[in-house]
């Protein structure tokens, strides 16, 4: 991100970077940066908190008025209030991981459908859609990999079978996590991740798929299993 700032500034446009990893901004030295203490993935901080987000973006934009650079690296003082757990939130009630993981995965996708639809209506959007598959189709495709042997054809013309698998898994995670925020509670990312990776059939299925892919003779499948299925902090648990 900081590198982009250098290149764009060199072309004559003033930039201000939001920085999530302070040592990186210290070493890359973009002209103006606001370090924020929020978790990776949340440069503006808490979702559904316009006032807080406004303070962050203003803190960044006001650096454009300063005359005392380069280099400016300023710290945003406040933590993301959404890092705290919301104990009024309840994880989705599904059958969870059981027996045949491929079947449990497909069952859970169906069980989550009402909550997913509710969540989409509440937010007016979904982030599911990296493949053109419906969640049911994506689950069937992932289940086919779990059941083996690996499908030789991709259900999406422009994606190879293994790349389609990666994006289908991304879509299923998004589907499950969006279903889990239906109802207006404000769970932390940790609460959501604990449910997905420890209690859901989707999480268990993706963990199993990771192990399966890592044992593959196909180098691309092995790489995708190692790097792009289960987050590093979750893979160790």
């Amino acid at each position, binding site marked *: *991100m900081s590198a982009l700032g250098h290149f*764009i500034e060199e072309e004559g446009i003033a930039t201000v970077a939001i920085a999530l*990893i302070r040592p990186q901004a210290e070493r890359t030295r*973009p002209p103006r940066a606001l370090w924020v203490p929020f978790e990776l*993935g949340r440069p503006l901080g808490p979702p559904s908190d316009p006032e807080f987000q406004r303070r962050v973006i203003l803190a960044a*934009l006001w650096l454009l008025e300063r005359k005392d650079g380069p280099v400016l690296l300023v710290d945003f003082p406040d933590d993301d209030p959404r890092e705290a757990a919301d104990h009024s939130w309840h994880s989705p009630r599904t059958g969870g991981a059981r027996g045949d993981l491929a079947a449990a995965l497909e069952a859970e996708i169906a069980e989550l459908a009402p909550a997913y639809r509710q969540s989409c209506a509440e937010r007016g959007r979904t*982030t599911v859609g990296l493949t053109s598959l419906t969640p049911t189709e994506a689950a069937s495709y992932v289940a086919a990999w779990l059941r083996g042997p690996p499908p030789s054809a991709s259900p999406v013309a422009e994606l190879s079978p293994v790349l389609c698998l990666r*994006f289908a898994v991304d879509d299923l995670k998004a589907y499950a996590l969006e279903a889990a925020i239906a109802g207006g509670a404000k769970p932390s990312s940790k609460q*959501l991740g604990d449910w997905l990776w420890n209690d859901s059939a989707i999480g268990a299925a993706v963990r199993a798929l990771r192990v399966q892919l890592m044992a593959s003779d196909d180098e691309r499948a092995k790489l995708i299993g190692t790097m792009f299925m289960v987050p590093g902090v979750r893979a160790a648990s």
Partner: protein
Amino acid sequence: MRLDRLPAAQAERYATLECPDFQTTLWVEGPPLRDRRVAIVSSAGLVVRGERPFRGREADFRVIPGDTRPDQLLCSHISINFDRTGFQEDWNVVYPLDRLNELAAEGVISSVAATHYSFMGAAEPAQMEASAREVAGRLKSDKVDAVILSPV
């Protein structure tokens, strides 16, 4: 991110991530904030629904027209090691367009760009240079004179 709250080994990894070495830092001045036209450049691997997702460490960019609706924006970043639930709940966490439009309506900034841009931040910085310079050219054509760089 507060590295002091992470396990030591993980904090060390982030603290020592390989970074490009820029010998100099340019500094472009401009008008007061109230006269600035502002664009977002994200490194979240954002794509408009239906467009080709980023694959691998691709160093090109995607165009996000200013009238793109929240339902049309997806995240195809290669890394799975950052939170996506914030973006899933509210796109402003990563792509603060609503906040910029509010600031423009209030006169805090002059206006919001007609087009915004996204890169996939895990690409090699040196390989992004040509794309970044092309984006800068497009931003200048849109009379943008301030860019907010939003990472994940």
